[in-house]
């Protein structure tokens, strides 16, 4: 199972890549495998303010709809529009072209509370 070393992880299987005060968020390889065939992604609206742990998007497989929680608080600044026509990117490229949204992080200290790659690997093993 792929767990990249340069990311932080949430208990609820989201990852975040911090670039300055911008965080890029998606779901992990483990999560996409559990979800299996993703057929629809409901993206947040740009400008929406979300709190850490709040639902920011919904990913639907054939069988079920799953909430995607924002790992940290912030304002949504960009969403991955490519997922609207190709939701399967979440399955094929969960850490790259399958990213879901970017947000302006309001409290960088929240990143410290997230899991390290080692801790997340432990969680899913």
């Amino acid at each position, binding site marked *: 199972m792929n767990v990249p070393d340069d990311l932080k992880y949430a208990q609820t299987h989201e990852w975040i890549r911090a670039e300055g005060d911008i965080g890029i968020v998606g779901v992990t390889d483990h999560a996409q495998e559990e979800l*299996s*065939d993703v057929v*629809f992604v*409901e993206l947040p609206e740009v400008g929406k303010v979300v709190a850490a742990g709040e639902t920011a998007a919904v990913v639907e*497989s*054939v*069988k079920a709809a799953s909430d995607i929680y924002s790992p940290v608080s912030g304002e949504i600044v960009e969403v991955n529009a490519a997922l609207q026509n190709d939701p399967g990117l979440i399955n094929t490229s969960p850490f790259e072209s399958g990213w879901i949204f970017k947000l302006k992080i309001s409290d960088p200290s929240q990143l410290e509370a997230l899991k390290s790659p080692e801790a997340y690997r432990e969680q899913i093993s």
Partner: protein
Amino acid sequence: MPNRTPLYDCHIAAGGRVIDFAGWEMPVQYTGILDEHRAVREAVGMFDISHMGEFLVRGATGEAWLEGLLTNRVAKLSPGEAQYTLMLNERGGVIDDLIIYRLGPDEFLLVVNAAKIDEDAAWLQKHLVDGVEFRNVSAEFSAVAVQGPKARDVYASVFGTELPPERNRVLSVSFQGSSGYVVTTGYTGEDGFEIIVPNAAAAVLWNALLAAGVKPCGLGARDTLRLEMGYPLNGSDLSPDRTPLEAGLGFFVDLEKGDFIGREVLAGQKAQGVPARLAGIVVTEKSPPLRSHYPVFVDGAQVSETTSGALSPSLGYGIAMAYLPSGFAKPGQPVEIEVRGKRYSGSVAKKPFYKKS
């Protein structure tokens, strides 16, 4: 403690992802629902349906007894033939939908839904009459459904003989020294067959089918396949509060055959019209997958909720079923379906949603 079918280890070995279904640990998928759905539409797949119930009915008055408990006319069946039928409560509501197979002049096999085995058996026991032998043999038998355009080739290669060309047939077969039944029925809209064997023969059968190239398929694909055909699922689309006429199953109800439990209510509905009908709905704009219990609107007012729904893998758009007031249950009627607070345009559509080209 959930039940496991005799094929549980086979599912794990094939990479099956197991979920609870009506108290049974069943595979929801192996490689993926879309992949398995496609295999059944284009080639051949198999489903463990051992959790379903099997009842045997014997006796010279067995036919007459069953006529009084089921909606379709049992007398139409010659030995070796089967029909879809329903068992109703006194209010005309559906207890269960099932398939009845006539094994001989005085011998019948009933295959019922897993979730309803106990309730069905109790109902039949309660109405049992002298001279009829009723046996619930659900715990003794396993079953595998083999479905898809290549199912016939698989049958010929595994059993060394041709499958009967007609649907709704039952024949006794011998497999690995055990006697069982092969039936030409299914729940996918594809050609195919189902094999019912004693538990001890189940794994050998599964592995023989696997070796013949049949793809294991889970409950997820079973659900999308049946929904594309507009086949109802009891507990979702059928209920004790809805009659088969409301469910659009009038073809399987014979009001002329004599009395049966629930008949009076159905005859009244036939004369006066049904208040609601189970309608097919398609969305006509891009939408999330439809699921059960989504609100349905006509002209801005909520009129119902969906009983089943999916993003149809074969068609690529959302399909659903809902009981709509009869005036709205006509093909072409515009509706809206609400998903997480957003409404999506759709319209009532004829079933089946999916037609073989």
